[in-house]
């Protein structure tokens, strides 16, 4: 399959050379998706999807043109090449083009993502039994009125070739188990779920995730939560676990450090950033403890594709080091504009039919040197809340003013977790929040969350990336209840 796709990419690149474009690339993709979902204790969805197609991007006098088609029909692909060149010329005829790509060494190669057990080879009976058992476990209590149990497997084969000599391919398997239990009590409803998300991995991720144990935990904690008192309000300390922080960092660090935002290319949709280009290597973003490491070579990271959709290899760098902002994530088109010689390899499209844009890399909050446990962090809190998992989330378009909820809350009093809570939210401003970080557990407590649905761009595209952190502490944060 990959060989056939490489031939198609090579053929498109050859056609682009003959048409005399200044630059051109081809992406050929073939994706198989299996999605199985239990709603309560019944199989509500069993769906297979087979997607394939080609995306062609060209530069003519500094103007982009992009066209795509589904299927791998030769004549349709030739028409797609024509359309890409046509729209680029239309742009060049109206406005002066200004696109300049960073110089990158051409790559040739192939990357296989880690996958020990092919999930498509696991019998449907085994999958159904696993999900049915988890669903039955959640519904052992009548307080659970609804639940979701799902397994999602995706095999994505992708080939990228360009007129500068790059020809690379990847074979990636994405696996994502999901569990959510919903408890109803006294007119209220609360949920609890497994939120570690997706990995580039095979069936071994389903086994490691421990759905059966999570079904029990989700059931018990959803019931505990719906019967819990609402949280306290006022300024207090927060202790946040890795699955919770993964979303907080995604919104308040990942998005503001995208180079297309600082250039204003997302101003109409996803928004801008509070950062300026000359803040690189100067601006204090967080406390001295705060180190954000971007890593598109991270094992299991769902943005570890070998090469991005510019054909640039996956890389590892500091976004924030010892609390100081280091650099934006970039693509070949933005690297020079934000004062960098080379792209960090953050160019990705949702699929073959989308124009690739600047996306967040995998990145994580580097754990503390330790040894420090979450209990050590909690023991130094007089009044606060411990939060696990993600809940409500919202942030302004410049990525400063945010409000987050969570999936499970515990009141901390005099250094101990004393009772579960519900409807806790906290509000802060990005740099105030990260500067309030004064403690971090070590890497034994590191948890990751693989996101498959980060929305950005127009037309809207979903992108995937993995974040992670060890449990960390933040001092004097404004905490509220529900919609108050």
């Amino acid at each position: 399959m990959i060989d056939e796709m490489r031939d198609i990419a090579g053929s498109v690149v050859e056609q682009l050379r003959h048409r005399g474009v200044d630059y051109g690339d081809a992406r050929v993709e073939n994706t198989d998706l299996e999605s199985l979902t239990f709603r309560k204790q019944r199989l509500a969805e069993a769906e297979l999807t087979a997607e394939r197609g080609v995306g062609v991007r060209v530069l003519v006098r500094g103007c982009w043109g992009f066209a795509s088609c589904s299927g791998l029909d030769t004549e349709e692909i030739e028409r797609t090449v024509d359309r890409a060149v046509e729209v680029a010329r239309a742009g060049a005829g109206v406005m002066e083009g200004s696109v300049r790509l960073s110089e990158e060494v051409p790559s040739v190669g192939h990357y296989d993502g880690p996958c020990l057990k092919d999930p498509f080879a696991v019998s449907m009976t085994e999958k159904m039994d696993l999900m049915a058992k988890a669903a039955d476990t959640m519904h052992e209590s009548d307080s659970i009125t609804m639940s979701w149990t799902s397994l999602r497997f995706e095999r994505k084969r992708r080939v990228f070739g360009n007129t500068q000599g790059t020809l690379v391919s990847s074979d990636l398997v994405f696996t994502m188990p999901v569990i959510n239990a919903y408890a109803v009590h006294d007119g209220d409803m609360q949920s609890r779920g497994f939120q570690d998300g997706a990995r580039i991995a095979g069936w071994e991720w389903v086994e490691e995730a421990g759905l059966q144990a999570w079904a029990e935990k989700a059931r018990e904690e959803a019931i505990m939560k719906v019967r819990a008192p609402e949280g306290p309000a006022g300024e207090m300390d927060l202790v946040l676990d890795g699955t919770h922080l993964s979303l907080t960092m995604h919104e308040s660090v990942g998005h503001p450090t995208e180079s297309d935002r600082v250039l204003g290319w997302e101003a109409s949709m996803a928004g801008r950033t509070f950062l300026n280009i000359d803040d690189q290597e100067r601006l204090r973003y967080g406390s001295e403890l705060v180190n954000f490491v971007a890593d598109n070579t991270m094992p299991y990271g769902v943005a570890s594709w070998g090469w991005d959709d510019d054909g640039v290899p996956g890389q590892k760098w500091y976004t924030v080091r010892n609390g100081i902002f280091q650099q934006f994530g970039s693509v070949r088109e933005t690297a020079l504009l934000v004062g960098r010689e080379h792209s960090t390899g953050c160019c990705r499209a949702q699929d073959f039919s989308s124009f690739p844009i600047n996306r967040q890399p995998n990145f994580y909050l580097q754990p503390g040197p330790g040894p420090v446990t979450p209990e050590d962090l909690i023991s130094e809190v007089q009044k606060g809340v411990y939060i696990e998992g993600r809940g409500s989330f919202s942030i302004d378009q410049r990525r400063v003013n945010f409000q987050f909820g969570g999936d499970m809350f515990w009141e901390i009093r005099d250094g101990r977790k004393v009772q579960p809570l519900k409807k806790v939210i906290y509000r802060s401003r990005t740099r105030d929040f990260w500067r309030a970080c004064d403690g971090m557990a070590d890497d034994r407590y590191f948890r990751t969350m693989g996101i498959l649905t980060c929305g950005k761009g127009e037309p809207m595209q979903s992108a995937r990336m993995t974040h992670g952190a060890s449990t960390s502490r933040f001092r004097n944060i404004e905490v509220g209840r529900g919609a108050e």
Partner: protein
Amino acid sequence: MTGEELLGVVEAVLDSARVPDAVASITEYRDAAVRFGQNRITQNMDRFERKLRVTLGDGERRSVYTTHRIDVDAVPDILSRAMEMLRTASPDPEYMPPVEGGQVYPIVEAWDGETAAMDASARTRAAALAVSTAAGRDMEASGLVEMSYTKTAIGTSTGNLAVHRSTEAGMRLTMDRGKASSFRMLSSESWADLPIEETVHRVAEEVQADQAQEELEPGEYRLLFEPQAVADLVPYIAWSLNARQADEGLTVFSGKLGERVTGEDFTLGSEVDGTLKGMPFNEEGLASRDVVWIDSGRLVAQPCSRYWAGQSGREPLFIPGTLAVKGGPGSVESILRGVKGRALLFRRFWYIRFVDQKELSLTGMTRDGVFLVEDGRIVHPVKDFRWNWKPLDLFSTIEALGQPERKWQLSVPPMLLGPVRL
């Protein structure tokens, strides 16, 4: 492909399916768009896709297979994959056969041939106008100019067969200078109907008026929502309407059918072939129809699957892709002139999320224009701020409604709402 060709593939799939129950649908989609930002074109696209979806059922089990392989020769292989999935699926206690034959589908005229055939030059000229206008005023323009068409054919093993096609043209435009900004969205089935030039100049004027924002002083304010601000909130109500989720105690509408949920000036419905053009059928092949969900503040209907309709004694209903809020005679300007005391005028909201789904409480930010209004006139722009509101409570305090405007698949009026403490 023509409508007849699309139906031909659908019929070939249905004819070859060796199971009692089958539904096949095929969608052809073309989307051409120019994206711009920082006063330059950043993307120029022409995307084309055909997708076939086959649902098979044997009376107990069901499977769905979706593919980009669209040709009659591929049908045996496509069905073989779907059958393999079907054989290994577990029995579904909520199994439903395909919708009964004899569905009568509304004819929805939503196609504009010129928009479907438009080349890239019109789009790039519109983007260039926005960019040059902004640059001439020391502003930056960003946004999207887009034209698309969709053709969908569907058939069921119970004898239903239908095809529908629609076009869509639109522009989303933001201009900003520092923290001053404005945003407008245009949409229609026809590119020719879009007032591009007028809107570009209007947005530039609005940026000028957004300079020198001041902090919001705590206090009570009436809220004046432009149509876009209403359009940003209404989908959260629609997503909470589902009958089964309400019956299971999961939403704010649990046990509320027939009861008052907002003030009597709020009416929310869906239309299939009015100002808005909906889909004439859903993915099961069930015929669409106009529905009123909230009538003068009372919850009168809820989207309901065929299975749950049978269990709960309701009628199967679904949202046909459109939402319409009933309006009144005024405009934003006339409502503003009638404001007594203090109010805030909102152009748009951003990053709205549920805080609590059971309460239908939301949080979000203001964006691209908030203005203090006193006794019928704008006093000054206000800096963006976070809000936490319950839209059903807000829509219980409607004091004035204006004429609805189309915002993609929503028709929404401007609204003046009663005092809220901020």
